[in-house]
């Protein structure tokens, strides 16, 4: 379980360009949850993620991962990184080793595991991201395709077997096919590892389809916290923040606004089509 209580983070404190990146944010994420975080660029999302694995410290407030308070002074950073894996945006830009296997092994090695354990985890992580360890392990990461590089980078974090896996826009810049594949892979990992997965995305359809819990961040504040149905049900408020519900739901809302007697507003295409069929079939 992750418990974030009243965290506040201020950049350039006391200087003329002072800005509040996070303002009294509190929420809880249950074990086994697949949580989505939405909010546009500059809303404070990235700052929040970096707090969750100790890269940034809050100016006030606490974050508990399990029973550990990771905001406490002198807390063991390596322990936090082991518990919470963070995959940054465009993670393939962080690849540096000669071979795929060596790159994936970087994290586990830093954890001080035995060579045997490191090797086992590397193979496991590569299989989890859908790459054959035999075939890819010896290749240079730089000769892979964009989608494969991204998988390798994600494997590098997965190999640390984090209890919480955070992914910041893992599908940014990918084409539709690779996008679908990478999301499927993240779902697989979540199901196999029973970890907490946190997905940051601009793609509302993905968030609606994959997450059981959605957090909305706007201007450094947590403004919504609930199930996808609850959050996307408040589409008017989302629109005001420059966010939206999934496209199918937005389309239904638009029909409703122009007088079409739409009842329910489902979040997926098939559900939305059923509502339209009901109306047309009257």
């Amino acid at each position: 379980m992750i418990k974030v209580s009243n965290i506040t983070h201020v950049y350039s404190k006391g200087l003329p360009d002072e800005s509040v990146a996070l303002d009294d944010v509190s929420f809880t994420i249950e074990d086994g949850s697949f949580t989505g975080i939405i909010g546009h660029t500059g809303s404070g999302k990235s700052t929040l993620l970096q707090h969750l694995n100790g890269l940034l410290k809050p100016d006030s407030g606490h974050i508990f991962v399990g029973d550990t308070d990771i905001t406490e002074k002198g807390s063991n950073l390596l322990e936090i990184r082991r518990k919470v894996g963070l995959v940054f945006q465009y993670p393939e830009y962080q690849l540096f080793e000669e071979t795929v296997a060596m790159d994936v092994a970087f994290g586990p090695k830093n954890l001080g595991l035995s060579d045997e354990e490191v090797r086992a985890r590397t193979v496991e992580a590569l299989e989890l991201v859908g790459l054959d360890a035999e075939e890819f392990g010896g290749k240079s990461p730089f000769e892979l395709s964009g989608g494969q590089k991204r998988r390798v980078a994600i494997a590098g974090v997965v190999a640390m077997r984090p209890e919480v896996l955070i992914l910041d826009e893992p599908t940014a810049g990918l084409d539709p096919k690779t996008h679908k594949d990478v999301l499927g892979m993240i779902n697989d990992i979540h199901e196999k590892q029973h970890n907490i997965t946190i997905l940051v995305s601009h793609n509302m359809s993905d968030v609606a389809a994959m997450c059981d819990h959605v957090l909305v961040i706007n201007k450094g504040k947590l403004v919504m916290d609930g199930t996808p149905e609850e959050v996307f049900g408040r589409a008017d408020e989302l629109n005001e923040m420059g966010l939206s519900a999934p496209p199918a739901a937005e389309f239904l809302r638009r029909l409703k606004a122009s007088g079409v007697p739409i009842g329910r507003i489902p979040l997926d295409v098939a559900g939305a089509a059923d509502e339209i069929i009901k109306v047309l079939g009257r």
Partner: protein
Amino acid sequence: MIRDITLGQYYQGTSLIHRLDPRTKIIATILYIIVLFIAQNAFGLAISTLALIAVIALSKVPLGFILRGVKPIFIIIVFTFVLNLFMIPGEAIAVLGPLTITRESLRTASFLAGRLVLLIFGASLLTLTTKPIGLTDGIEKLISPLRRIGVPAHEIAMMMTIALRFIPTLLEETDKIMKAQQARGADFETGSLVKRAKNLIPILVPLFISSFRIAQDLAMAMEARCYRGGEGRTRMNSMQMTRLDLAGFAFQAAFAAIIIIFGR
């Protein structure tokens, strides 16, 4: 933090100093640095300090802003001061164990430190009151007579422009890569010097690759916008010397004369 570095930054303004032609300011800064080393007595240093204070006041750049920028260099100044303090033989005035401070060493160390401080303030005032693009344009214009002897004036200026443009981008990139590797348990803060140097590999390799990617993309974008070197190229802002610049030069000349006559 990376965002605290103000050295080399531009401070938006419309003061007299801001409005001077970049060439005037570049020449003035070079002249000022030369004069600083001509000045040999306390009077010379005092006049140099007064002149700088006057220019800072005219520029309306807050003193705090300048100080914030030169902070990182202060250690170097202190270091040179201390080194000089103990290194010059002469009439001893204080003894600290094996180290001796002499009258000569105190004088030399103080003068050197004073000069360095003035030099850094003077140079940062140039960048604070001149847009980077003005600075590079000014340098290009000033060294363009050297083209005849084969100095690639335009290319040098273009390289400086691009470097200035991409320094913030690369700093941001470095920050990102560092955080990503830290998230994988990398440690950049502890260990022996050799170990720490080795720990930089996970940052340097991706950074190197990023720089190459940027260079490639940028070269292509520049070509697409019809860039073909300095030949036949015009500028939107052509530099123009005004009466203000004349006044600036007069001030410079007077200052230099005073130092040369009384300050040695």
